[in-house]
């Protein structure tokens, strides 16, 4: 496959970036998108051009690091995959592919395609945990009976890898799908109910302070989420938030 890539290049967080065009020849359709980026970087280095900086780690759809906005969609045109799971067979010979960083005020660009997603960490730190005494007397989690449906829903919410595709995709750069997955994960389990009120209030407060936009229920986040996190979680967080607000 011969491809034309239009890639966002930005020297650092302060620099003004722009799209650069690169030609690639003989790209294998069996390559993953990140492997194609590796080949591009080797090509650039032989030409004396600085390679494109992009985030990646596990390359098997678990870590959530790869964060490219490909041809107008977070993680590209495929569904339920991260960029590392996207393969070049999804494109055609002669295609022009635009590659941009995830864009949001809360996700500032560090360099090229890498963005700072530590806003998610701060939201998580605001309440995305269960306070457990680990002195040795901790109750075995399996000793608490949990309804199978609740356990399944909590597990589904917990599969969120915090990649930020929801924010990148949402026309408002809203983080509601991510935050609601974290809130739901605990709200559905008895271990999480103790701190439920404080958790949802603190996490939403932090989310708002980070500068994410408001959710307008377009549903784009659910479609683009590589883990298929459901909008049901957002409704649950709305309920949790309203209930917590009334409790004060």
């Amino acid at each position, binding site marked *: 496959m011969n491809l034309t890539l239009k890639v966002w290049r930005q020297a650092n967080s302060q620099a003004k970036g722009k799209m650069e065009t690169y030609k690639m020849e003989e790209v294998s359709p069996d390559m993953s998108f990140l492997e194609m980026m590796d080949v591009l970087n080797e090509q650039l280095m032989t030409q004396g051009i600085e390679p494109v900086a992009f985030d990646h780690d596990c390359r098997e759809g678990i870590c959530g690091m790869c964060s490219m906005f490909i041809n107008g969609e977070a993680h590209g045109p495929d569904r339920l995959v991260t960029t590392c799971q996207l393969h070049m067979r999804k494109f055609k010979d002669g295609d022009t592919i*635009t590659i941009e960083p995830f864009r949001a005020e809360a996700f500032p660009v560090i360099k090229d395609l890498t963005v700072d997603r530590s806003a998610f960490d701060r939201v998580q730190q605001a309440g995305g945990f269960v306070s457990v005494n680990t002195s040795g007397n901790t109750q075995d989690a399996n000793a608490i009976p949990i309804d199978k449906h609740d356990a399944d829903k909590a597990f589904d919410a917990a599969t969120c890898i915090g990649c930020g595709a929801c924010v990148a995709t949402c*026309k*408002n750069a809203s983080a509601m799908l991510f935050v609601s997955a974290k809130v739901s994960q605990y709200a559905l389990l008895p271990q999480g109910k103790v701190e439920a009120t404080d958790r949802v209030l603190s996490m939403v407060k932090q989310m708002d302070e980070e500068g994410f*936009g408001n959710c307008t229920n377009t*549903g784009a986040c659910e*479609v683009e989420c590589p883990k298929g996190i459901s909008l049901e979680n957002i409704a649950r967080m709305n*309920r949790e938030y309203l209930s917590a607000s009334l409790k004060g």
Partner: protein
Amino acid sequence: MTLTASSIGRKVTMALSGIFLVLFLTQHFSINLLSVFSESLFNQVSHFMGNNPIVQFILQPILIFGVLFHFVMGFVLELKNSKSRGVKYANYKGGTNASWMSRNMIYSGIVILSFLGLHFYDFWVPEMNYKYVEVLPLNPDRYFEELVHKFESPVRVGIYALSFVFLSLHLLHGFASSFQSVGINNKYSKALKSFTTAFSLVVPLGFVFIALFHHLTAF
């Protein structure tokens, strides 16, 4: 923290004011529909609505507040949302994962707001003038004639029809979305979505039908 200070709180108030406006729209449609079937019944109900003190001095101010709140909050949210992504994408395919209606609520809302300006100028201002400025004598038989008179102009009927198409588009996303905003997403949501879709098509197009009916039967 007040409810309107947080992003979720704002969405909830937006949803509740939207549901309130949908209820008003249902009532307005029901009364307008009477004009197709019975002139006297339409006059009777309109006279009651126009002169009942509870409707006039309690419900009407609440309605005006609801309308203003929904629009002001809509613009506040839009402003915040547009600031949340300073640098826009060079290539953004919004249509691949979300409906046109859901992505353009502000534009359909602006069309509806413009229409409301015309609607107030056409009906509400003359009504207020009749009752409270000129203080003309009560005439329980004037409403039907006034309604039909407004629909004589094809231009006005055209603007009216176009505005209701945008109202339909606005409701197709907004009505169902308001339930999600207040936390309702369960096994009944599919049925609720079907109901809100039917409502969003039938009621606005029903208003257009009423306008066309009077336009075509006026001559």
